[in-house]
């Protein structure tokens, strides 16, 4: 009889049916990047093979992420549990629209950076491990987006953290060690705070599965210390996302590594923090979030304004862009503070837009640095003569990052302003518009100084000082590897700006899933697959 019972119990507690083939897509991004990373580590002595290997695996990553997104939008939340233990006991990977769209955009950006790196990262950089670190960074990023277990999220955070350390000090220069030390200590502290919050949450409700947490948090008695846990999550992920006042690691470090590394960091790392904030504050602890809405709104406004003022105060383009990353995080936090469906959709849309635009801006800045011989706007000038195409692309990105139509930055700002007015957060709406204006000033000045004026400050016409270095002089490989990623990202910016309907549908679906996770919960806990 005992044996019969056990068999019955195992049938209830474990997944006995084989996993449907389509559901393997859930962990395919991780498998692809881990295999690619491992192969790149194996070929560390034959660095000439690494770009090809990375290119193949990053293309595969984009492909499986496209398949995953279409699978999720068609058939709802997809769940896969590891080791066949049923949720909430096994570690579950559960993918909703939010996870899938962010994972897809992140992989597109990684593909672009991988291609750009073929030319931009020299053999020394490859020997230091650019490609293995890039692929393993993507393992961490995709894992963070796709997992449905909060402790597992911590593990993926650490995976991406250690890979980002490797990328940051690629080359071992003085300035990189200085920036990396500050970045490493502050980010390590942030993940420790995340772990503290998770430990307290587990002590309170006894589960780590996100769907299970969302259910059990509602059944807690009054007076449970959820406010403290929410505040700890806000501090930990706010630090990751570079929200004021815990964002000083970002301007200290983002201009120090190679430009491709800056590009992938600016695109992905802070947005993983924003995603974790969305997941924990909006989906898991909605009551804690609404109790702290005012505080989050204040943080958001201060973050966007200090960010853009920091950008105005810089002469180095890379530093100015770092501050613009921070300013964008402020806008995303504003949507989280308002917390309605459309505001969360705006946050998600802004995250997608910011991933694409910030990466593209850094990649274009890499070309500016190559052609102008400097990243300092006082020493640049007249680049329009060197490459009108580059001037045009940079101008498009300037419009997009400022939130001007018809580019991708316009729509999320429209949604955010509209929903903040609807919820009577007038000062937030004013701050978003003011930030847009100041961003226009800041990037406009960069464009005018680097491209439009005749030459650098106080340089006579046609002098040696203002000379434009043709790209072919500083390059050994083909220039296409530099232009294709930029062209792809800029065309995405234009397409999303001109035809935003598809993106509206996706982020709307994602926001609904975050605010009302009942479908997510029933799929994870009830889905006996």
């Amino acid at each position, binding site marked *: 009889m*005992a044996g019969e019972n056990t068999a019955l*119990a195992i049938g209830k507690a474990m997944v006995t049916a084989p996993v449907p083939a389509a559901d393997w897509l859930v962990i395919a991004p991780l498998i692809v990047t881990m295999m690619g990373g491992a192969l790149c580590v194996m070929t560390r002595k034959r660095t000439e093979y690494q770009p090809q290997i990375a290119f193949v695996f990053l293309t595969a990553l984009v492909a499986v992420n496209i398949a995953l997104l279409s699978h999720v939008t068609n058939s709802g939340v997809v769940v896969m549990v590891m080791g066949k233990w049923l949720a909430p006991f096994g570690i579950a990977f559960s993918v909703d629209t939010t996870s899938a769209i962010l994972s897809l955009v992140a992989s597109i950006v990684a593909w672009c950076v991988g291609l750009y790196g073929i030319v931009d990262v020299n053999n020394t950089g490859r020997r230091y491990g650019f490609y293995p670190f890039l692929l393993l960074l993507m393992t961490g990023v995709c894992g963070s987006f796709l997992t449905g277990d909060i*402790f597992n999220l*911590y*593990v993926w955070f*650490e995976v991406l*953290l*250690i890979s980002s*350390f490797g990328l940051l*000090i690629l080359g*071992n220069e*003085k*300035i990189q*060690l*200085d*920036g*990396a*030390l*500050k970045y*490493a*200590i502050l980010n*390590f*502290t942030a993940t*420790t705070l995340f*772990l*503290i919050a998770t*430990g*307290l949450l*587990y*002590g309170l409700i*006894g589960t780590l599965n996100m769907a299970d947490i969302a259910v059990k948090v509602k059944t807690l008695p009054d007076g449970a210390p959820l406010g403290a846990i929410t505040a700890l999550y806000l501090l930990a992920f706010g630090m990751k996302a570079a929200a004021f006042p815990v964002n000083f690691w970002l*301007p*200290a*470090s983002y*201009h*120090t590594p190679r430009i491709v590394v800056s590009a992938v960091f600016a695109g992905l790392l802070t947005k993983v923090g924003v995603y974790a904030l969305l997941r924990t504050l909006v989906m898991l602890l909605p009551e804690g979030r609404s109790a702290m809405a005012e505080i989050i709104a204040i943080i958001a406004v201060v973050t966007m304004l200090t960010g853009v003022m920091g950008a*105005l*105060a*810089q*002469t180095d383009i890379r530093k100015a862009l770092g501050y613009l990353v921070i300013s964008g995080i402020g806008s995303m936090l504003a949507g989280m503070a308002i917390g309605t469906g459309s505001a969360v959709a705006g946050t998600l849309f802004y995250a997608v837009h910011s991933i694409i635009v910030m990466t593209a801006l850094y990649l274009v800045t890499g070309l500016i640095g190559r052609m102008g011989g400097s990243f300092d*706007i*006082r020493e640049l000038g007249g680049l329009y003569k060197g490459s009108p195409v580059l001037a045009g692309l940079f101008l498009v990105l300037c419009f997009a990052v400022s939130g001007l139509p018809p580019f991708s930055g316009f729509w999320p700002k429209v949604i955010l302003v509209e929903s903040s007015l609807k919820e009577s957060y007038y000062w937030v709406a004013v701050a978003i518009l003011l930030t847009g204006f100041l961003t226009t000033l800041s990037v*406009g*000045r960069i464009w*005018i*100084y680097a491209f439009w004026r005749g030459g650098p400050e106080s340089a006579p016409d046609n002098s040696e000082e203002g000379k434009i270095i043709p790209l072919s002089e500083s390059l050994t490989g083909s220039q296409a590897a530099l232009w294709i990623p930029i062209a792809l990202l800029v065309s995405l910016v234009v397409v999303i700006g001109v035809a935003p309907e598809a993106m509206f549908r996706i982020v709307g679906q994602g926001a609904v899933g975050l605010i009302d996770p009942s479908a997510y919960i029933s799929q994870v806990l009830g889905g006996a697959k």
Partner: protein
Amino acid sequence: MEVGLSVLIGIFFAASIYLILSKQIIRILLGIAIIGNAVNLLIFTSGRLSREIPPIIPLDQDVPALGSANPLPQALVLTAIVISFSLFAFLLVLAFRAYQELGTDNVDEMRVAEPADQPKPPMGY
């Protein structure tokens, strides 16, 4: 037992935050090592502490006896120890390399990435 450990964890957190707020990198690193241990103890304590009742399900029952310690936090602590240990090892090497290159372990004097006398930006177009 829980009360005693909670007090100890509080002392650990206080000491580590004090150390992390100082200006010497080596003191900051010591603070990080202590905060890692504080977190591990915190998770360990959150899973109930008792030696008397083994966490084994008796033959005729479906759940472990009431009051036994939860083994899951201990598994989490193991994971956290491994991860924080490896990251801490990396931080030590990084701090040592930074000390070699920059010639100081005072964070106020580490100004290579952000020089103190940055020029003013252009004030117009």
